[in-house]
């Protein structure tokens, strides 16, 4: 396989991890977020700073990245306790712009020049290039899916679902909205941090614009297209929305327009996402399963 294809594979995996995290916040806990790229960025900048300033390896910094991103996610999840729906969407957009500006204008974060010279990942002394990196990113994606699966099956997941469906009803049976919203924000943003760390070590140069609002829109599109609140939805979405821009490279000027059209078509014809209720892929999977059984 050419390096080009492998690179696309790596981006599918990274976007998949970040989208899985967003799915926990949006799909499972029902808290809309249009600022997820901020946490992707916080993860990437944490990893980049630890690597360039402190000489930390990817492995050593990963737990720290998870903790720091999750902690900031917890903090920035606080607005979700006061505002909901459209207002939460606007607030999270604001968070995205603030975080991006901090990276852009505070010299500590490299300013407009970004951070370069981030080390490659070493795996038992071997430098991970395309194929090796894809294997690592793929493994972390599988772990993220495992995390999501566990989350959905646990009591925490059930409590989050209840909260998504009817907050007042949920709190009247003893489920604390505060606790579970923050838990979802923390888990979801920590996963974005993992994606960010991979991104920083793969690109080896990052700058603030990599984590702007359009990236948040793309992440949310992945979750919506694949199917909010489904296990595989974000991965399917990441696959489609990472590969399609490559296929349509000649139309690069119209990329945002295509996203808009795609989103509108999804909302009109597949409101639950490809894997959601009445989704095309869900029906297909059901049919194949039925055929295998008979």
């Amino acid at each position, binding site marked *: 396989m050419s390096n080009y294809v492998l690179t696309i594979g790596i981006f599918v995996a990274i976007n998949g991890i970040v989208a899985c995290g967003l799915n926990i916040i949006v799909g499972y806990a029902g808290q809309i977020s249009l600022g997820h790229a901020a946490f992707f960025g916080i993860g990437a900048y944490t990893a980049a700073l630890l690597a360039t300033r402190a000489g930390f390896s990817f492995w050593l910094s990963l737990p720290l990245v998870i903790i720091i991103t999750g902690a900031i996610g917890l903090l920035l999840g606080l607005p979700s306790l006061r505002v909901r729906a459209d207002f939460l969407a606007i607030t999270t957009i604001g968070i995205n712009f603030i975080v991006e500006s901090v990276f852009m204008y505070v010299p500590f974060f490299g300013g407009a020049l970004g951070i370069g010279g981030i080390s490659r990942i070493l795996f038992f002394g071997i430098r991970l290039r395309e194929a090796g990196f894809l294997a690592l990113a793929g493994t972390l994606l599988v772990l993220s899916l495992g995390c999501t699966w566990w989350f959905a099956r646990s*009591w925490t997941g*059930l*409590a989050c*679902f*209840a909260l*998504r*469906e*009817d907050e*007042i*009803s*949920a*709190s*009247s*049976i*003893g*489920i*604390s*909205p505060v606790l579970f919203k923050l838990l979802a924000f923390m888990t979801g943003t920590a996963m974005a941090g993992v994606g960010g760390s991979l991104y920083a070590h793969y690109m080896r140069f990052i700058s603030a614009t990599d984590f702007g609002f359009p990236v948040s829109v793309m992440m949310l599109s992945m979750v919506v297209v694949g199917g909010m609140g489904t296990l595989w939805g974000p991965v399917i979405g990441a696959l489609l929305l990472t590969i399609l821009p490559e296929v349509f490279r000649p139309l690069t000027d119209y990329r945002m327009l295509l996203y808009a059209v795609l989103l509108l078509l999804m909302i009109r014809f597949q409101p639950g996402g490809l894997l959601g209720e009445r989704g095309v892929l869900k029906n297909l999977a059901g049919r194949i399963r039925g055929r295998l059984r008979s």
Partner: protein
Amino acid sequence: MLLEAENLRIAYRDIEAVHGASFHVEEGELVSIIGANGAGKTTILNALMGMTPVKEGAVRYRGLDITGLPSHKRAGMGIRIVPEGARVFPQLTVLENIMTGLYRLRKVTDVPSRLSWIYELFPVLDERSRQLAQTLSGGEQQQLAIARALVSKPRLLLVDEVSMGLMPILVEKVFEVLRYLNREEDLTILLVEQNALASLAISNRAYVLETGVITLEGEAQTLKSDPGVRKAYLGA
């Protein structure tokens, strides 16, 4: 005294819906608050659960002042509500809906036996346990809401307008279940109802609420024969 409300004033912004209501519920009682549409019944019940803030007055539960506690804390103390319009979780299955009621209680609960008790009370939920709650009829959703509240073995069950929109035969059945729970299972119930006849029939005591003020109170039997009540609520 299990529950005591003292001089409750509840307002939605500037509009006061309840003007100083006082009432109480003893352990083991079935008490109803009856009144016409818009009298403030649901407002009172929501305030007891912590879903609507109280402007003035106090709510005491087992001697503790719970006026400022959030809903989930009250739920943790053994108060549960069957809310107006059931408010089940539409995208969760019937079984999942019931299980949410056991949140934080799973370890101290014998889940299979509790579930079979619930299914005995509401056999239709057993049949539909794997269906999404949104596919249930209105009456089935009401039963599910009761099941979700009951599965936790509450000390105090608040029931809001359970008869609304139900077929008469189902109303009878649901009230029969409430009566059974109160008499045989010693569950304390506070019922708010427009259907005065049905609720007085199963209650020990009752309060009559008119536009945010409690105008009458007493034994259910006495109220049933009260000429004013008969005229206003029983259609006689």
